[in-house]
C-alpha cells in the first residue's frame, strides 16, 4: 500500500508541477518575455497530444493483438505532416488570417458564416470526442487499478469511479484556470501549450525508458529482441491490405479533423514558420514513440500470464520484473498523455460549444445585443468555463455508463472515423470555390448518419442498440442496408466498410449538393478568401519585439489623428504604464483606448481593422471590409452633401455678382439718362428764357421781332412738351404698365394713316412714298394706335434724315417664317455701320443735328414692338436706311 501512496504523492507533485509550468508560461507571455514560448520546438511538442493514453497504453495492446497494424495510426499523421506544403500550410494561413477559433468556426466561416453549420459540427465533434475523453479517464483509473492490484489491494468499482471523478475534476480545474484566464483575440493559451509540451517530453521519456529497459534489460539487445519478435505469435507479416490503407487514410484524416489537433495545430500556431520545423520533427516524434511498441508487446506476451490485458503491458511488465520506479515513470507517462489530451480537447470543444451554441442562445435572450462589450466578455468566459465542465463531465458520464469495457483501440478508431467525416467539407472548402453550404450540410449529414449506423451503433454490441436480426438481415429485412454489408457486399472488415461508405457517400453528397445549389454572396466571398488565401494575405509579419508594434501603431496614429495628438496620447499612455519615453507597451488596455481614439476619426470598424492588422498580423475579414465600406460610404455621402452645398453657394454668389453688375450698369445708365434728359431740357429752356427776357425787358422791339421771338418761345415750348411726352411714353412702356388696346384693322389703313400723319406740314420737300397696296391687304389684330405710332416714327425718320436729292421711301410688306414683316427702305445714304448698334438707344441721334429731335423715337418704337410681341430692327445692305418691323403671325392670323 506504501507504493500506492507514493504513487498518489508523485501524481500530486506532478500535477502541481504542471500548474507551475503553465503559470510561469502565462506570466512570461503576459510580460512579453516568453520568446522561447514561441519556439518551433514547443509547437512540435504540443502537437504530440495526438499521442494520447491510447498511444501510450493502447498501442502495445494493439500490437499484441494485430501486429504492425498499430503503425498505421502514426504513419497517417506523419504523411500529413511531411506533406505540410499541400494542406497544413494553407490551413494555418487561413486560420491566422481569418482568426479561426476552432474547426467548427473554420467550416462555418467558409460556408458563409452559417451558425447552423457550426452548431452541427460542434455537436458532431462532441459526439465524436466524448468516447475519447472517457477512454482517457478509463486509462488513468485502470492504471491505478493495475498498480493497486499488483500490490494486492483490488480497488472496488466505486473507488475506481471516484478516482475517475477526481481526475476529471482536476482536469476541469486546470483547463478552466489556464484555458479561460483571459479572452485572447487569437485564442492562444501559452500556459496550456507549455504544459502540453512538457507532458509530451514526459510521455516520450517514459515510453523510451520502458522500451530501453525491455530491449536491453529483458530482451538482451537488438538482434535478440528482433529474433524474439519473429518467434512470437505476431512474428509473421499478417496484414489485410484494405485495413492497412484505410487506417493510414483514417488516421491522417483524423489528425486534420480532430478538434484538439486543430486547436494546437492551427489555433495555437504562433508563426507559420513553426510548421516547417514540425513537418519533420513531429514525424520523428511519432517514429520514436512507436519504435519500442512491438518489443514491449512481444516481451509482455512472453512474460505475462496468458489472458492478462495487453493494453497495460507498459505498466505491468516493469511491475512484474520488480522495477517499481520505472513502473511509476511509466504511470506518469500514461497520466501525462491522458491529461494533456483531455485538457486540450476540453478547451477546443468548450470554445466551440460556447461560441456556437451557448453565446448565440444567450445573445438571443438579451434584448440589448452585444453592444456592451465588458458584460459580454464576462459571459463568454463564464460560458467557456461551464462548457469545459460539461464536456469533461460528459466524458466521465460516458465512462461510467459504458463501464469501460471495450478495448481502447477500437474505441479510438470509432472516434477517428466520426471526426474524419469533416474531411471532405474541410478539404473541399479550402480548395474548391464551388463548395457550398448546402453541400456541406448534405455531406456531413450523410457521413455521420452512415458512420453512426455502420460503426457507432453496432460497436455497443449486437443486441444492445442494434438487434442481431438487423445486423444479419438489414433493417426490416432490407438486405442491402445491412449495417456491416451495404449493397450486399459482405466480407469487408466492419471498420473499412464503415469508413469506405461513409466517406465515399459523404463526399458524393457534398459534391452533388454543391453543384446543384447556389451560394450566397457572403459564402462566395468567403470561398474566394479561403481558396485563394495566399493571394489575399501576405506572410504575417513576425514582430521583432513588442515595441516595434507600438512604433507601427504610432506611425499609423500620427497619420490619422495628427502628429502632435498622437505623440501626446502615446506619451500619456507610457506615463500611465510607468514607462519612460514615448512608446508604451501595447497592452490590451492601451490598444482599446487607441482604437477608440482612432474610431473617432475613421470609424470603429476601420480602426479595429487597422489595429488588428498591426497587432494581430491577421488580414481583414469580409465583415470588417463590409463595415469599412459602410463607413466609407457614409463619409462619402456626407462629403458629397457638403460639396453640393458649397456648389450651390458658389452658384448663388455668381448670381449675386451678376445682379450687382447689372445694377451698377443700370445705375450708370440712369445717371447718363438723367444727364442727357437734363441736357435736352436745358437747351430749349435756355432759349425760352433768353427770348422771354428780351420780350420783357426791351421796349423797342418791332412787332415783327416780337412775333418772331414769341414764336421761337412757342416752338421751344412745343419741343419741350414733345420731349416730355416722349419720356412719359417711354417710361410707361419700359415699366410695362402700358395697356394695350387690342382691336382689328387692316394694315393698309394703318399705313395710310401713318403716311398722312408723318408727312403733314412737310411742305415741298416731301418724301415720295412707294407702296404696294396689293401686299398690304392684311388684317391685323393688335394695338393699332401703337403700331401706327411706330410706322409714323419710321416714316418721319425717312422724311427727316433721307439725304437723297429726290427722297423716296419704299414700304414693302412680306411674310417671313411665322411672322409678318414690314420694311421701310429709303434711298438715302443710310446709317453708318458703327452707329447701327446704337440707334435704338435713348437719345442717340445720327450725324449732325440737322433736325430737332430728342432721339427717343426709335427707343420708343423698339419698346412698343416688344410689347406687341414683335421687333423692329435695322436692315443693313438695302442701299439706304432700312428698318424692318416684324409682327408675330398670330397678330395677322387672329384677324382673318
Amino acid at each position, binding site marked *: 500500500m506504501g507504493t500506492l501512496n507514493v504513487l498518489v504523492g508523485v501524481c500530486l507533485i506532478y500535477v502541481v508541477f504542471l500548474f507551475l509550468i503553465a503559470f510561469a508560461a502565462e506570466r512570461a507571455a503576459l510580460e512579453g518575455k516568453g520568446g522561447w514560448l514561441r519556439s518551433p520546438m514547443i509547437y512540435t511538442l504540443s502537437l504530440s497530444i495526438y499521442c494520447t493514453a491510447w498511444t501510450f497504453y493502447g498501442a502495445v495492446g494493439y500490437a499484441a493483438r494485430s501486429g*504492425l497494424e498499430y503503425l498505421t495510426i502514426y504513419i497517417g499523421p506523419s504523411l500529413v505532416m*511531411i506533406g505540410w506544403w499541400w494542406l497544413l500550410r494553407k490551413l494555418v494561413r487561413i486560420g491566422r488570417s481569418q482568426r479561426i477559433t476552432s474547426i467548427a468556426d473554420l467550416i462555418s466561416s467558409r460556408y458563409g458564416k452559417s451558425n447552423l453549420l457550426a452548431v452541427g459540427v460542434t455537436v458532431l465533434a462532441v459526439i465524436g470526442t466524448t468516447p475519447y475523453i472517457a477512454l482517457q479517464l478509463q486509462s488513468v483509473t485502470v492504471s491505478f487499478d493495475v498498480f493497486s492490484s499488483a500490490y494486492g489491494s483490488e480497488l472496488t468499482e466505486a473507488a475506481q469511479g471516484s478516482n475517475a471523478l477526481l481526475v476529471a475534476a482536476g482536469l476541469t480545474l486546470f483547463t478552466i484556470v489556464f484555458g479561460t484566464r483571459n479572452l485572447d483575440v487569437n485564442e492562444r493559451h501559452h500556459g496550456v501549450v507549455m504544459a502540453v509540451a512538457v507532458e509530451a517530453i514526459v510521455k516520450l521519456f517514459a515510453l523510451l525508458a520502458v522500451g530501453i529497459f525491455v530491449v536491453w534489460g529483458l530482451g538482451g539487445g537488438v538482434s535478440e529482441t*528482433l529474433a524474439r*519478435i519473429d518467434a512470437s505469435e505476431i512474428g509473421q*507479416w*499478417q496484414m489485410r491490405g484494405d485495413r492497412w490503407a484505410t487506417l*493510414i487514410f483514417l488516421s491522417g484524416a483524423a489528425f486534420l479533423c480532430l478538434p484538439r489537433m486543430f486547436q494546437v495545430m492551427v489555433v495555437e500556431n504562433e508563426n507559420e514558420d513553426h510548421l516547417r520545423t514540425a513537418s519533420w520533427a513531429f514525424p*520523428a516524434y511519432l517514429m520514436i514513440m512507436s519504435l519500442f511498441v512491438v518489443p514491449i508487446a512481444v516481451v509482455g506476451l512472453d512474460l505475462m500470464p496468458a489472458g492478462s490485458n495487453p493494453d497495460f503491458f507498459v505498466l505491468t511488465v516493469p511491475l512484474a520484473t520488480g522495477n517499481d520506479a520505472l513502473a511509476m515513470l511509466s504511470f506518469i507517462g500514461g497520466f501525462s498523455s491522458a491529461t494533456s489530451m483531455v485538457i486540450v480537447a476540453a478547451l477546443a470543444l468548450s470554445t466551440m460549444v460556447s461560441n456556437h451554441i451557448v453565446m448565440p442562445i444567450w445573445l438571443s435572450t438579451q434584448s440589448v445585443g452585444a453592444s456592451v462589450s465588458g458584460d459580454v466578455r464576462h459571459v463568454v468566459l463564464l460560458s467557456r468555463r461551464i462548457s469545459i465542465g460539461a464536456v469533461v463531465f460528459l466524458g466521465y458520464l460516458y465512462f461510467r455508463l459504458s463501464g469501460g469495457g471495450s478495448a481502447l483501440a477500437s474505441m479510438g478508431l470509432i472516434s477517428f472515423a466520426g471526426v474524419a467525416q469533416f474531411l471532405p467539407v474541410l478539404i473541399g472548402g479550402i480548395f474548391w470555390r464551388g463548395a457550398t453550404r448546402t453541400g456541406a450540410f448534405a455531406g456531413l449529414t450523410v457521413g455521420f448518419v452512415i458512420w453512426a449506423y455502420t460503426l457507432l451503433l453496432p460497436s455497443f454490441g449486437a443486441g444492445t442498440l442494434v438487434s442481431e436480426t438487423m445486423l444479419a438481415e438489414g433493417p426490416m429485412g432490407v438486405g442491402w442496408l445491412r449495417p456491416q454489408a451495404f449493397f450486399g457486399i459482405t466480407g469487408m472488415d466492419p471498420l473499412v466498410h464503415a469508413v469506405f461508405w461513409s466517406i465515399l457517400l459523404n463526399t458524393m453528397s457534398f459534391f452533388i449538393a454543391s453543384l446543384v445549389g447556389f451560394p450566397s454572396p457572403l459564402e462566395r466571398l468567403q470561398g474566394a478568401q479561403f481558396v485563394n488565401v495566399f493571394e489575399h494575405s501576405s506572410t504575417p509579419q513576425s514582430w521583432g519585439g513588442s515595441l516595434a508594434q507600438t512604433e507601427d501603431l504610432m506611425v499609423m496614429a500620427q497619420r490619422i489623428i495628427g502628429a502632435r495628438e498622437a505623440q501626446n496620447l502615446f506619451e500619456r499612455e507610457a506615463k500611465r504604464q510607468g514607462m519612460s519615453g514615448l512608446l508604451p507597451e501595447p497592452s490590451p488596455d492601451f490598444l482599446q483606448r487607441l482604437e477608440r481614439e482612432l474610431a473617432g476619426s475613421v470609424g470603429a470598424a476601420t480602426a479595429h481593422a487597422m489595429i488588428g492588422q498591426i497587432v494581430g498580423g491577421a488580414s481583414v475579414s469580409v465583415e470588417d471590409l463590409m463595415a469599412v465600406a459602410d463607413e466609407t460610404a457614409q463619409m462619402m455621402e456626407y462629403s458629397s452633401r457638403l460639396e453640393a452645398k458649397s456648389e450651390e453657394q458658389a452658384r448663388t454668389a455668381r448670381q449675386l455678382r451678376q445682379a450687382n453688375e447689372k445694377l451698377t450698369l443700370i445705375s450708370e445708365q440712369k445717371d447718363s439718362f438723367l444727364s442727357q434728359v437734363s441736357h435736352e431740357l436745358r437747351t430749349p429752356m435756355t432759349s425760352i428764357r433768353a427770348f422771354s427776357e428780351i420780350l420783357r425787358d426791351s421796349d423797342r422791339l418791332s412787332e415783327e421781332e416780337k412775333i418772331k421771338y414769341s414764336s421761337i418761345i412757342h416752338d421751344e415750348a412745343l419741343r419741350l412738351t414733345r420731349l416730355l411726352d416722349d419720356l412719359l411714353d417711354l417710361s410707361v412702356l419700359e415699366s410695362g404698365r402700358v395697356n394695350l388696346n387690342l382691336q382689328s384693322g387692316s394694315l393698309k389703313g394703318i399705313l395710310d394713316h401713318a403716311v398722312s400723319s408723318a408727312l403733314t406740314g412737310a411742305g415741298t420737300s416731301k418724301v415720295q412714298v412707294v407702296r404696294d397696296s396689293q401686299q398690304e391687304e392684311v388684317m391685323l389684330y393688335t394695338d393699332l394706335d401703337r403700331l401706327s405710332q411706330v410706322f409714323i416714327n419710321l416714316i418721319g425718320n425717312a422724311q427727316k434724315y433721307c439725304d437723297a436729292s429726290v427722297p423716296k421711301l419704299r414700304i414693302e410688306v412680306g411674310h417671313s417664317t411665322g411672322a409678318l414683316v414690314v420694311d421701310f427702305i429709303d434711298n438715302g445714304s443710310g446709317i453708318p455701320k458703327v452707329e447701327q448698334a446704337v440707334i435704338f438707344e435713348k437719345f442717340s441721334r445720327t450725324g449732325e443735328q440737322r433736325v430737332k429731335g430728342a432721339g427717343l423715337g426709335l427707343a420708343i418704337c423698339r419698346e412698343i414692338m416688344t410689347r406687341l410681341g414683335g421687333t423692329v430692327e435695322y436692315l443693313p445692305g438695302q442701299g439706304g436706311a432700312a428698318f424692318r418691323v416684324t409682327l408675330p403671325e398670330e397678330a395677322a392670323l387672329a384677324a382673318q
Partner: protein
Amino acid sequence: MSAKHNIPFLERQSYRRRRLIDTIRMLPVIGAVLWAVPLLWRQSEDSGTVLTSDAIIYIFLVWLLLVVGGGWLAQSLKRSNAEERERGR
C-alpha cells in the same frame, strides 16, 4: 560585382527555390508509395512470408528517410527564405 552579373545568379536562386518546393511537395507522395509497398507482401501462412522484424526495419527506415529528407528540405527552405528576404523581396 556589377548588376549584370547579379541577375542570372538571382534567377538561378529562385529557380532552385521553386524546385525545392517541388521536392517538398513530392516527399509525402514518395512516403505514401514506399509505405504502400507492404500491400504487396504475401499474406498466406506458408513459407516466404515477410518476417515482422524485417517489416519493422523497412517501415522505420522509410520513416527515417522521410524525417531526414523533410528536415533537410525544411532547412534548405529556411535558408532560401532568408536569402529571399535579404534580397528585399
